[in-house]
């Protein structure tokens, strides 16, 4: 059995995040890392590998040189190999182009199952897993709070505001898992050492048969016209509660704003 896990290299959410001059995400300003939400996807793949015989887990990323760090993390956690789609023409690709590149790489790898995180922590659109399923014509069992594999059927629990759905699909399928699916493991020392010897296949757009004119910033089907940092918030009033002064301040604020 072969599982492909899609992983993304993102700017650290706890650092400075912003835009470069061409209005794409600035990937130089701060250190990047494997999107935290993709760690849950890696974890679910590894749990399937732990429970089964002969399960191969391949981490797949599309991104610049530095995206190798995201792959490294997935390999350290326990993935058996990786694919890095790396091409200067990819810079500035929107979700449509990114999903097309991922789908082409997945087709080439011929996995039984694709596992994604629920969204990236930078773009946070949460649309790429559904787009990959659409492009492959495979079932999309997305946003699983749980994931179970039984033979050739995958089952997830998808929680909505009004109900909890049980969704099943036959392999090959694309699934995405949420941060409710279970804590991701930390790499062990053994895992860190082993990762250095694991195979990483680098692919270009040409290898995937994708015309460079169809991806990247110029080919994006959306155009970002302007990016503006939010002005820093003016410091509000802070009071320390003593002898009921806190409640007094709260009541005053709420009635001034006509909330009560």
């Amino acid at each position, binding site marked *: 059995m072969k599982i492909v896990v899609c992983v993304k290299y993102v700017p650290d959410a706890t650092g400075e995040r912003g835009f470069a001059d061409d209005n794409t995400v600035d990937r130089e300003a701060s250190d990047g890392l494997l999107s935290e939400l993709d760690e849950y996807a890696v974890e679910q793949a590894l749990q399937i590998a732990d429970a089964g015989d002969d399960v191969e887990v391949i981490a797949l990323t599309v991104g610049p040189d530095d995206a190798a760090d995201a792959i490294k993390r997935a390999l350290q956690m326990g993935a058996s190999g990786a694919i890095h789609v790396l091409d200067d023409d990819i810079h500035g690709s929107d979700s449509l182009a990114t999903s097309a590149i991922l789908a082409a790489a997945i087709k080439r790898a011929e996995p039984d199952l694709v596992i994604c995180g629920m969204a990236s922590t*930078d773009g946070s659109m949460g649309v790429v897993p559904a787009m990959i399923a659409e492009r492959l014509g495979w079932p999309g069992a997305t946003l699983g709070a749980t994931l179970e594999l039984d033979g050739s059927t995958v089952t997830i629990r998808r929680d909505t505001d009004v109900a909890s759905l049980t969704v099943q699909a036959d392999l090959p399928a694309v699934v995405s898992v949420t941060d409710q699916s279970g804590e991701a493991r930390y790499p062990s020392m053994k895992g860190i050492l082993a990762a250095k010897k694991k195979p990483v296949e680098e692919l270009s757009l040409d290898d995937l048969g994708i015309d460079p004119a169809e991806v990247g910033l110029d080919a994006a089907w959306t155009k970002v016209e302007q990016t503006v940092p939010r002005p820093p918030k003016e410091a509000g009033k802070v009071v320390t509660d003593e002898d009921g002064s806190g409640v007094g301040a709260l009541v005053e604020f709420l009635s001034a704003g006509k909330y009560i």
Partner: protein
Amino acid sequence: MSDVLVVAELAEGAVAKPTLELLTLARRIGTPVAVVFGSAAPIAAKLGEYGAARILEVTDPAIEEYLVAPKAEALAQLATSAGASAVLISSGAEGKEVAGRLAVKLGSGLITDATDIGSDGSTVQSVFAGNWTVKASVTRGTPVITVKPNAVAPEAASAEGVVESVSVTISDAAKGARIVNIEPKQASGRPELTEAAIVVSGGRGTGGDFAPVESLADALGAAVGASRAAVDSGWYPHAYQVGQTGKTVSPQLYVAAGISGAIQHRAGMQTSKAIVVVNKDPEAPIFALADLGVVGDLHTLLPALTKEIAARKS
């Protein structure tokens, strides 16, 4: 003016408020045409009242039986046959997935989580935990745009609202993810979290006791939210989580009680109009966002405030 498809959603049998917001925005860029999955009869009058010239009713059983894909396929067919100039969908987990698949099918650009749409079709989005504002436009195909709740105040504008029952063809490829069971959740009786004018949220500082948070929320007619720490501790259901992996809210007033203000949480509430913070730790980063911050114990402050509000009401 050309048709703008608006995907209508129901909440407890009535038109969901975000749908009225979409109709209001759709009027800026064209003629709103509502798409209803299921019976349109109970909501047709209201959709017409808010500007839907036509209402397309889609009742194919596949839409209820399979996840996401059939809706996208139906919309692609309707958008093509109507020659629609845009498709508007409410931002939510399902809405965004439908939009993503639809954009692939139509060969169109996609914008998610818009907070405004201009008359030229350009959108405004708030990104990186609300720290940046992005103005963008779709440059190819039929723009597919998902819009966040509370983007605009719904305005009535009477239109005909003629219901047309339309049939669509759902392919086998769209019938891959089978919904085999639905376990309804109990309604809280409080306003919907992403739509509420006021949200009162509790975090680690509640110590697991959400009663003071809920009581204050009820006194204010507010929705209840929770931080990831509170949800991860099993103190409150995930459906109420405010933050990057939960809901993004932008209410008139946000009350954060016992929440330290990790980036994960700030990403979900930073764009609230007014923010009140109650926290024992004066060093908590959430105070930087506060219009009013009170350093103190939520277990005494919240009940005292609730009592004071009740006293004012009577």
